[in-house]
């Protein structure tokens, strides 16, 4: 435990992923998406690279999300569909544990843009 900490001492690296080119084209502002992710506390359930404190384990980790083929293992990856999933997952999969979350359409779009830049 102490040794790991010692080894990690020199490197507190924060991955600034939002500035890279997206793997898939998506409308929206990734920087604003990161702010929205923080405001809406997505990190309580998901581990999300580049977002402070986001290391939840209730839902799947979202690292390299830009390479993910399916949304939640169910739906084909598509910016509009992902935006809908983020805002209102139960409408697409009634059995999901992911709640409907109040947000603006722009926020959902921006979050998609952020996620698509995670490689």
């Amino acid at each position, binding site marked *: *435990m*102490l040794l790991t*900490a*010692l080894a990690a*001492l020199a490197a*507190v690296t924060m991955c600034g992923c939002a500035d890279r080119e997206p793997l898939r084209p998506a409308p929206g502002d990734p920087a604003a998406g990161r702010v929205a992710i*923080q405001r809406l506390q997505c990190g309580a359930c998901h581990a999300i690279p580049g977002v*402070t*404190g986001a*290391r939840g384990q209730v839902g799947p980790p979202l690292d390299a999300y830009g390479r993910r083929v399916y949304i939640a293992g169910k739906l084909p990856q598509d910016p509009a569909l992902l935006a809908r999933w983020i805002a209102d997952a139960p409408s697409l999969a009634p059995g999901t544990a992911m709640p409907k979350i109040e947000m603006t359409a722009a926020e959902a779009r921006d979050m998609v843009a952020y996620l698509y830049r995670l490689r």
Partner: protein
Amino acid sequence: MKKEHLPNSLPRPPDEFEALKRAWARPKGWRFFTAVNNTTIGMLYVGTALLFFVLAGILALIMRTQLAVPNNDLVGYQTYNQLFTMHGTIMMFLFAVPVIEALGVYLLPGMIAARDLPFPRLGAYAYWAYAIGGLIFFGTLFFNAAPDGGWFMYPPLTGSEYTPSNSADWWLLGIGFIEISAIAGAIELIVGILRTRAPGMSLGKMPIYAWAMLVVGGMIVFGFPPVILATLLMELERAFDWPFFIAAKGGDPVLWQHLFWLFGHPEVYIIFLPAAGMVSMMLPVMCRTPIVGYRWVVGALVGVGVLSFGLWAHHMFTTGMPHLSATLFSAASMAVAIPTGIQIFAWIATLWRGKMQREGPSWFLLAFIGVFTLGGLTGIMLAVVPFNWQVHDTHFVVAHLHYVLIGGMVFPLFAALYYWAPLVSGRKLSEAMARWGCGLMFVGLNVAFFPMHITGMLGMPRRVHTYAEGLGWEDLNMVSTVGAYVFAAGVLVVLADLALHLRLGGKVDANVWGAGTLEWLPLDSYGSRSIPQVRGRDPLWDHPALAREVDSGQHYLPGTATGGRETIVTSPIDARAQYLLVVPGPSWLPLIAGAGTAAFFLLLTVKMVAAAIIGGMVALAAMLKWMWQTDRGVTHPPVDIGGGITLPVYASGPVSHSWWAMVVLMVVDATVFASLVFSYCYLGTNAADTWPPAGVNLPGLAWPAAAALAWLASSALFGLARRRLDSPAVFRAALLAAIALMLAAFGTDLYGQWQAGLRADDHAYGAIVYTVLAWQGFHVAVLFVMAAYTLARSWCGLLDATRRVTFDNTRLFWHYMAGQGIAGIVLVHALPRWLG
């Protein structure tokens, strides 16, 4: 001074110097571990303390890295809470206090021109117990078993309900015995300073550092007992459910806070005063002028020492204490600024009067003045009660205490490393590395800790493993973390300088700074060739030929009179030569006893009771064996040390150094007992219900009366034995009867409570009463061993009317203990009747 006035004349006998060297030769090879010389033990001691400084510093870097960003998960709370607990504990108990004692052990004999400290084996024992115990204590971190309740260990968090693992026991037992080691060191230094100064070095001519260490020795004697008692109470509560700090059973967690800070605040000055003393030695030399206001500075040291015992409650302003009490403690806390101000202005005036040499130590000294002043000023802020309500337990306090401790202690210590390193290797360390080291440390300290004042005022508490984003703390924390690494780089540069340029050598004759005090005489393992007659505060400045005279053997005791190791014992105030003390040489026993003591306490922590007892027996056997070799009696006719002075080689009674050590030890003991009385009264006067609680009966008065009479009779028998030292049969009978009466006294007292139905785990009342009894019982056991040892000496013919130090010490302690026994009886039996 003309030659004919020197104590000894030239030429010296041809084999005198060889015999002196032979007597003081440092053991070689494996026998290195038997060394007891103050210089060898002092070096080991300083080195080990610096190792702990580095280790605890690494823990701090991990913490700073964790706090660099909000919501960080580099280390979890479990690790973090261990880290800050261990960082504080190690820095205080395994670095700061040991390193000041270590430097004292190394420097003081040279400074007062003694050949060694009066109890070299005790010094070696204190070192080994500390080194072995400390390293094992640190090792608990690697097993995720380190204490995690903070270095202040507040109950009930650290009680068995909220800390069921034995992590807290590591702290209590580990620190408990390191305190004992510190007290052993303090007794050694006090007796050394008061009784082994060179002839003529009256108190008024003593170097300021020796004054500082004398005051600090006294502070350890009065300051450590409260925390020894506190750790004892907490361990009794954890191990046997004696509820001292459990409110539901009549205890009070605030009692711990009083006892802890009764120690904890003097502790800060125990760390600072030696550093201030060193500054008062170094600064005048670096400025080529005597210190301005010697008497004022000495008075200030004593003043801080006394005042420091009246401030402890300023750590407790937020506990809801009445505003009036808080104000009194606030005023006392502010008053410390006056003796501190005296010292700071004496140093500044010295800087004005002299011409500061722009070299190694000077940089650290200047950094010290700036940093420490800021720390002192924030200390005054903390003493302001309403302001304290806000910043107490925040990062503001973290900033304050690091400014005070790093500023007030680490900078002077590093200055001292640069200043006194030539004593070891005969040459200075690297000037370039001194500048880099000091610069990086100064910048790093300010970058790391200045922002913390603000972080604290923006609301960030101490001892948090992480913090929320968005409260305005992120940037300040990141800056602090960067500063911490810069500081660490500075420390690394200094340590590298030491590693590269410090060479352990033989004889050193290098007064590189042109200093005036005696540690700069040509020295070797035996100290100086002869022991100088001292006539002023800066003998080497007052009399430039002194070094040559001393080194050619023209002053006192230029060789060894008995063929063994000797030093001159002088009177405590005006330093007149009184007798020649033959000090013990190399031995395995201190190492064995130290290892045994460490084993006893640490194995007890992991509940390996049988193994612990074996360790304790080994330690006891080693100590008895080494004591058996002391008290040699008159083995040699009186010795001519030169200058017409003839000294006996054996002394008993108040003139003996051993008598002084015994008295200091009894003061320590009495202070522990006073802390116990305080605890009893505190619990009694703060009790929610009656004292004793309803349903508890006091034993009838016959029990305590019988016990008190037995104590008196036992003590009287020792008085009788004292007068019949010349008739062994009567003497032994008196001692045997005294032992029987002591056991009867204790048994009566104990049984009286038991038959009245009192139990220790029901209520704080029973717990504290049985603690008083247990404390007496512990002393009864110690006295039993001492009396048996004295009888054994008598049977072996090693005790008579002249060779009597062993008996005198036992007798002193016996009388003391009769007093303590009766005081305990009065406390437990009279006080509740009087209160009720």
